[in-house]
């Protein structure tokens, strides 16, 4: 089993690892990342991304995880030996969100395990400060 970590979650998938590359079936791709190939276009619930010209992604029902990430402009960190990969968020997506000046929302818990959502503090001025014990 191979683990794909994405969007704060992780999912075990059936994958073939060959020469450091990770190959997924169409089913595994849909289960792990929510994308499907339709007529040369990768689609999820909200958007579609055309494959680059000459792409062989999905040929024979095989999806190379590195090519999927590149097509979607997502950073991919991969450890074939350890059997895990992390799919991050692109610089473009982050830059667009920050440039909009709408504070990106998140939910994190305090020491007591109570979740706090940033947007639930709307109506107040928020001084948000990141710190660490290190």
């Amino acid at each position, binding site marked *: 089993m191979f*683990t794909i*970590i994405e969007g*704060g979650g*992780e999912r075990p998938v059936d994958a073939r690892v060959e020469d450091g590359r990770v190959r997924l079936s169409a089913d595994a791709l849909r289960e792990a990342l929510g994308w499907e190939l339709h007529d040369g276009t990768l689609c999820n619930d909200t958007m579609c991304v055309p494959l680059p010209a000459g792409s062989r992604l999905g040929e024979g029902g095989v999806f190379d995880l590195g090519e999927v990430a590149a097509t979607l402009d997502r*950073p*991919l*960190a*991969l*450890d074939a*030996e*350890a059997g*895990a*990969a*992390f*799919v*991050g*968020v*692109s*610089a473009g997506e*982050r*830059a667009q*969100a*920050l*440039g909009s*000046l*709408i*504070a*990106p929302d*998140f939910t*994190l*818990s*305090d*020491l007591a395990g109570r979740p*706090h959502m*940033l*947007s639930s*503090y*709307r*109506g*107040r*001025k*928020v*001084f*948000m*400060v*990141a*710190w*660490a*014990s*290190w």
Partner: protein
Amino acid sequence: MWQALYDELRDLRFVVIAIALDKSADDARPWIEKAAPTYPVLIDTQHVVADLYNIVNVPTALWIDERGRIVRPNDVVFGTDTFKHITNLESARPLAAVRAWARGETSGFAASETRGLQTLPTALDQQARAEFGLAEWLARHGARDAAERHFVRAGELAPHDFTIRRGSMPIRGIDPMGPQFREMLQAWVGGGRPYYRPLPDTRG
């Protein structure tokens, strides 16, 4: 660290939200219990907020207005002068600016100014964060050697990102105040690169 500021300004519809970029709640716990803050202190072991806001060191503060808009981007703000002899950064001026904003005497930056002061992530920054995310997951699942490979790669891709380079040290069993940190800091600062990058001293 921010309790006095919060106590002073909380009736003005103002809140402090502190986010600990620590490897576990237990790492942050002694600090939080000692300060016993009444404002929220959240634990971010997976650096969700560092990724969303392109935060590369601590402490980093932002101002978010009542409508949820960033009106002052990432800045280095200390709550006290405890580390002033090391950092050369004093707390009085930035804290006075926060007070003036909370009281409505100033309104933060205009959108164009805020954008001009933002540092946006590059593709390398985001690749580094993916490597860090994988390494953090591997470390949590006992794959220490594999984790180390990706922590190292993350630091090489984004050498300015100390939430990665220093923040990973406790996970890797390295003392984040010890000789390896001091060596890293000297190499960085010795190359003429600042460890802290406060915003230019603008009105705010």
